[in-house]
């Protein structure tokens, strides 16, 4: 406040002496013990996802999810969530052809227990999910540590899961998959309006990694992946807007390489409202064993090269570029309630690969997502 920073004529006035004496009092303080939230938050999120290719709707997912975060005694707090996905529609058996119907329900739950310390937190978590053909169980451990000035926060975590696959096609029975994930993150507050974050993750998958519902889908039984995320949030003081940008890099030993650029812009539009348009650009290279569509074979299935140990005709392992555009509207009618609604359109094309080396012969792939959320604090 410029009005007061120029206050007083040094020590020449009584008030100047008072100010000098007031500012001379010891105000450097140690950071004291930290607590935990004393209120709970319950949130409900409903997702409706539909993807399609020209002439055919493919997979639809309707997923309501309920999450709770609440304090326990002392420095402990608890987080828990449950989600139920209803999956229906059709999925291609190879490339973008051979659509076969599917219908399943997936129920999942997780729970996390967190202990807060002066400068750190430690969390342990457990998660499980069940589908008619797939079961998964996971354990996780995560810690954070902040510097004295709270401008630097390190985070590290370890998660392990064990999955079991029992496809109705019975190509395998009780096949196992084990995943180990390690991540390390650094968050730096650069200024009152600027935050940067870097996250590095390693993911090691072993076991049955193929898709049992696709033909000629034989993938290696191991995959090691590296991912890097760099992102920043910048607040614009004049208009009250916030810009969030991110760059994600992914690479694995199946030779899938992907880059994603994201940009979001939070615009307050009234006392209780904000609107957030978002744009994401994605490009990825094909897995080394992805089998391109052979136009000669169409409409029949392309045969994998003779003698190939591994093969996949899964569109998700092809080379493509994709664009996601979305908009989110947030309403906070009173201190306890937050409501938001988000709509996203996703479009994926082989010819949009950033170097122009995308896969060919695949149908265009599009998706839309509606998401509605409501959160209440108690």
């Amino acid at each position, binding site marked *: *406040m*410029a*009005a*007061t*920073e*120029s*206050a*007083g*004529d040094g020590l020449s*006035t*009584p*008030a100047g*002496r*008072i*100010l000098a*004496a*007031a500012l*001379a*009092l*010891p*105000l*450097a*303080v*140690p*950071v*004291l*013990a*930290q*607590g*935990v*939230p*004393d*209120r709970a*938050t319950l949130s409900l999120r409903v997702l409706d996802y539909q993807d399609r290719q020209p002439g055919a709707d493919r997979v639809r997912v309707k997923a309501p999810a309920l999450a709770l*975060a609440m304090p326990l005694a002392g420095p402990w*707090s608890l987080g828990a969530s449950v989600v139920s996905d209803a999956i229906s529609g059709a999925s291609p058996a190879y490339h973008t052809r051979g659509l076969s119907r599917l219908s399943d329900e997936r129920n999942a739950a997780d729970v996390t227990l967190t202990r807060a310390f002066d400068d750190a937190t430690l969390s342990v978590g457990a998660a499980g999910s069940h589908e008619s053909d797939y079961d998964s169980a996971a354990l996780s451990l995560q810690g954070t540590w902040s510097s*004295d*000035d*709270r*401008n630097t926060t390190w985070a590290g975590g370890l998660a392990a899961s064990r999955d079991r696959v029992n496809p109705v096609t019975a190509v395998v029975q009780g096949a196992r998959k084990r995943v180990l994930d390690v991540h390390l993150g650094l968050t730096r*507050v650069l200024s*009152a*309006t600027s935050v940067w974050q870097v996250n590095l993750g390693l993911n090691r998958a072993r076991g049955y990694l193929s898709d049992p519902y696709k033909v000629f889908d034989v993938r290696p039984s191991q995959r090691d992946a590296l991912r890097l995320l760099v992102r920043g*949030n910048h*607040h614009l*003081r*004049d208009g*009250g807007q916030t810009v969030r940008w991110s760059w994600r890099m992914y690479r694995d030993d199946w030779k899938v390489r992907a880059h994603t650029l994201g940009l979001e812009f*939070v615009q*307050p539009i*009234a*006392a*209780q*409202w*904000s609107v957030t348009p978002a744009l994401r650009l994605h490009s990825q290279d094909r897995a080394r064993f992805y089998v391109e569509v052979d136009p000669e074979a169409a409409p029949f299935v392309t045969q994998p090269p003779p003698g190939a140990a591994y093969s996949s005709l899964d569109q998700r392992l092809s080379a493509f570029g994709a664009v996601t555009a979305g908009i989110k509207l*947030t309403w*906070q009618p*009173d*201190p306890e309630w937050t409501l938001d609604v988000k709509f996203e359109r996703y479009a994926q094309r082989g010819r949009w690969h950033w170097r122009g080396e995308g896969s060919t012969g695949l149908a265009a792939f599009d998706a839309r997502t509606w998401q509605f959320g409501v959160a209440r*604090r108690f």
Partner: protein
Amino acid sequence: MMAVTHTPQPPVDGIGTWRIRFAAMGGSGEVVLAAPAAAQARRCADAAIAEVLRIEHKYSRYRADSVVSRINAAAGRADVACDSETLALLDYAHTLFGASGGLFDVTSGVLRRAWRFGPDAQGRPPQPPDAAALEPLLALVGWPRVQRDGARIFLPEPGMELDFGGFGKEYAADRAAAVLVAQGVAHGHVNLGGDLAVVGPRADGRPWSIGIRDPRRADALMASVPVSRGGLATSGDYERWFEHGGQRYCHVLDPVRGVPVRHWRSVSVLAPSALAAGTVSTIAMLMQREGLRFLDDSGHDYLAVDAEGRLHQRSAGATQAVSPGICAH
């Protein structure tokens, strides 16, 4: 119970503004700060609130184990060793005594023994004490008589009292704000019963808008002051008072005559710290008519309402810093 409330503003960058209320120092307080999540807001606020409670416990004259109670209990008998924080506050008290021409005196709390602001045990309304009741108490007032030997403090006469109530709240607000800063909080403030220490502006860079209550209408604001940093404090004649024979008697007592001051209904001051703001506003109250010149000379922005309800103010960028609303006359 402390409560975390999310103020109804659009979250900016996922950073909401959280309001944590608590009870301390005989009144209500709140910590307001910007944080991405309730847990983080809670953590920072808890540390700040703990600092307020620490100061309350250490200096409350209502607690027998406080530093102040120990010094007072030893009055006329023994000196008491003090830690560096207490000695720093005593140094500050010394500065205030000199800067106020002897009007701000941390030994004047004994005068409260003669002044009752509520009905007595028999339900009789309060009335001003007579001179005979005040005289022995006035004899116990006198900062210059307090003896200090290094880190030891001695009140020479039994019955003498020290009382940091005149600036303890503002000191606690400044310390609590420093705790927030030490945890990386850049946007927020600590409010202890209307006295504020502001860490920094709102998350979107706009200043906080702080209401100043009308001294004659408890439910009305007379002004709203934009504050981005520093301290804002108000002294007034409305916190404890009674009327007798058409005259209002408030709790701010002139330590020389032992009677309430009358010239100001309220004095609000904006300064680089809550402590400076609070002591300047209290001294202006104590100086009565001369308080206006003291305020003008202080260089701080102020908003004062005199006994007739007239507004006096100074603000850099006069229309901007203080925007008076309605004032009850």
